[in-house]
């Protein structure tokens, strides 16, 4: 916190509420998320299905509008920009999806798919489109000859490279990557991970890397945020969050991911988490993780823990963790202490 440069992207207390069709119920997919992203930095967001990470991604690139909260880019409020302002915004922040196939027109060549982006954003005069498309292919490690191919003629890894090239066409400063390697074969993933690292070095990009895979997040991130039921429950530098987590959910996630080393696995203590993620339309009171938490106490069932600074630059929303580091008040805050004195 309080770095030298102003963050390129900042979200403050974002929420996104959907109404569940036919039930009159509402579902809070994102429930008060704040984050900041520095230039050239990678923020990893990790969590399981239903935690709100993909909704958060769509809010950050303004594919959807938040229900409440604020998003700033370079200090400028972009929460509700529309029309040409939104198009201008999308020259600075782009998104890469899990399934590039879904975002590519099957009847359009790869070259044309790239030219289309250049055309829509009026980035170059038309006589330069095809040269720029080939340049983009080169940038993502593909032969310019691929410009003549159609999406179905490419492998999954090649299609994801095209997805990345499309995002790069506008020369953005931020790319939000939503599960960019999850659909790919294991032997193909490392090529995409290395490509992302190389592009970041060369172009100074900032990434929000969203994944369910803690190992991939650990590998690429400067900082990591762990989400559960719409909230960030832990955040900090990649190393302590991945290897010495404060929140019991992060620890459970870390233990659940098997390590591809039988010697390590043989000596590892793995505690299997009980139960399943609660219905986001009916979240439990208190800490959202308490029904599955091996450490849960009375207070966890009643008072939602605040995301509090428990060690240098490392925050967690857990009453038990807060007490363990000698800051029992940190996760309770003012509002809740009123409730307690009732």
């Amino acid at each position: 916190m309080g770095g030298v440069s102003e963050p390129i992207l900042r979200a403050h207390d974002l929420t996104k509420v959907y109404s569940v069709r036919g039930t009159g119920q509402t579902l809070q997919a994102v429930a008060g998320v704040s984050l900041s992203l520095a230039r050239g930095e990678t923020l990893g967001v990790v969590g399981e299905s239903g935690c709100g990470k993909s909704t958060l991604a769509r809010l950050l690139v303004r594919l959807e509008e938040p229900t409440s909260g604020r998003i700033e880019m370079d200090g400028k409020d972009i929460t509700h920009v529309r029309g040409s302002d939104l198009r201008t915004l999308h020259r600075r922040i782009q998104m890469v999806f899990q399934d590039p196939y879904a975002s590519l027109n099957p009847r359009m060549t790869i070259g044309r798919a790239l030219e289309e982006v250049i055309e829509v954003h009026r980035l170059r005069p038309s006589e330069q489109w095809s040269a720029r498309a080939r340049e983009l292919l080169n940038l993502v490690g593909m032969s310019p000859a691929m410009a003549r191919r159609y999406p179905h003629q490419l492998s999954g890894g090649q299609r994801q490279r095209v997805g990345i090239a499309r995002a790069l066409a506008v020369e953005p400063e931020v790319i939000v990557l939503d599960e960019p390697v999850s659909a790919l074969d294991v032997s193909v993933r490392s090529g995409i991970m290395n490509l992302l690292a190389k592009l970041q070095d060369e172009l100074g990009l900032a990434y929000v890397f969203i994944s369910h895979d803690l190992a991939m997040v650990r590998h690429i991130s400067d900082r990591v945020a762990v989400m559960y039921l719409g909230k960030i429950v832990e955040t900090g530098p990649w190393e302590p969050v991945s290897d010495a987590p404060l929140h019991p959910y992060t620890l459970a996630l870390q233990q659940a991911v098997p390590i591809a080393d039988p010697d390590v696995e043989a000596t590892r203590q793995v505690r299997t988490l009980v139960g399943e993620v609660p219905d986001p339309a009916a979240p439990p009171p208190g800490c959202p993780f308490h029904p599955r938490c091996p450490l849960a106490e009375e207070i966890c069932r009643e008072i939602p823990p605040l995301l509090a600074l428990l060690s240098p630059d490392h925050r967690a929303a857990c009453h038990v963790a807060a007490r363990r580091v000698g800051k029992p008040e940190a996760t309770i805050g003012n509002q809740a202490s009123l409730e307690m004195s009732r």
Partner: protein
Amino acid sequence: MSAPVLEVRDLTTVLNLAQGPVEVVRGVSLDVGAGETVGLVGESGCGKTMAMLSVMGLHPQPPAEIVAGEVIVGGRDIRKLSEEERRMVRGAQVAMVYQDPMTSLNPLMRIGDQIGEVLVAHGRSADEARNRTVEILGQVGIPQPRRAAESYPHEYSGGMRQRAMIAMALALHPQVLIADEPTTALDVTIQQQIITLVTDLQQAMGMAVIWVTHDLGVVARVAERILVMYGGHIVERGPTDQVFRDPEHPYTAGLLESIPRVRGAERHPLRQIPGAPPDPTHQPTGCPFHPRCPNAVEKCVSEMPPLTERGGADHAEHWAACWVPPEEWVA
């Protein structure tokens, strides 16, 4: 290894396509001992699922057809049995669970009735079937099994559906369970629950498990032995710790180095394997890995290397199919 409960010899399955027959399972052999856990690892299109469906006699025919090999269960080659006899072996001796539970669950039928139907088909009385159904649903960790038996699959969560499918597969106490990516579609904390469940049931029931997966971590966690498949062939097999420590096939070695380490403060670029796994209908000549292999020599282009035992006291039961020994690898 204890006496095998399942032996597969030179199993070859083809897909009969317009272009002619294409081999998708190419001379696969494997033994599974009683109570043992074997990991079968490979990426999409490597033939691992088709190999296991062929073992079960559940390969989609047409277009799939087993053209060679033996599948020996309880001393008998199930390829030589009648369909009726094969149905008796399926479930009672070898059972299979899938990535998508809806592959084996009927959405229009109550879970309890589906499991009961399997039991009745194998000669249990209606009463026995009802009791066993409730018992097995409880054993797989489904809360309130008596009530759960009355529910339909859509009323279950993804993790619970997977448990119900496992219950159905295990209702008849098979000696071998083939688990084909049963956790791939699940969240990691639910995956861990299923791993724990299968491991516990395996110990309680003394059955062997073949975990079919693309995830080397899962294999490291559960399997004593590993089989690595690529392009329809088993290209390496051996004790899990040995294969992970000293891989003898460049594909296995490449895979192991391409995944991020989850320990230590140093983060290096990941090892890349160029290209992508082959389309099973357009396999390269010779060794199917040669177009992606940094160590390939001329022979690899024309001739598939046989699976041979690697020498040395440290390499008992460790086999690989590669013309180039690791000492001569360039990478």
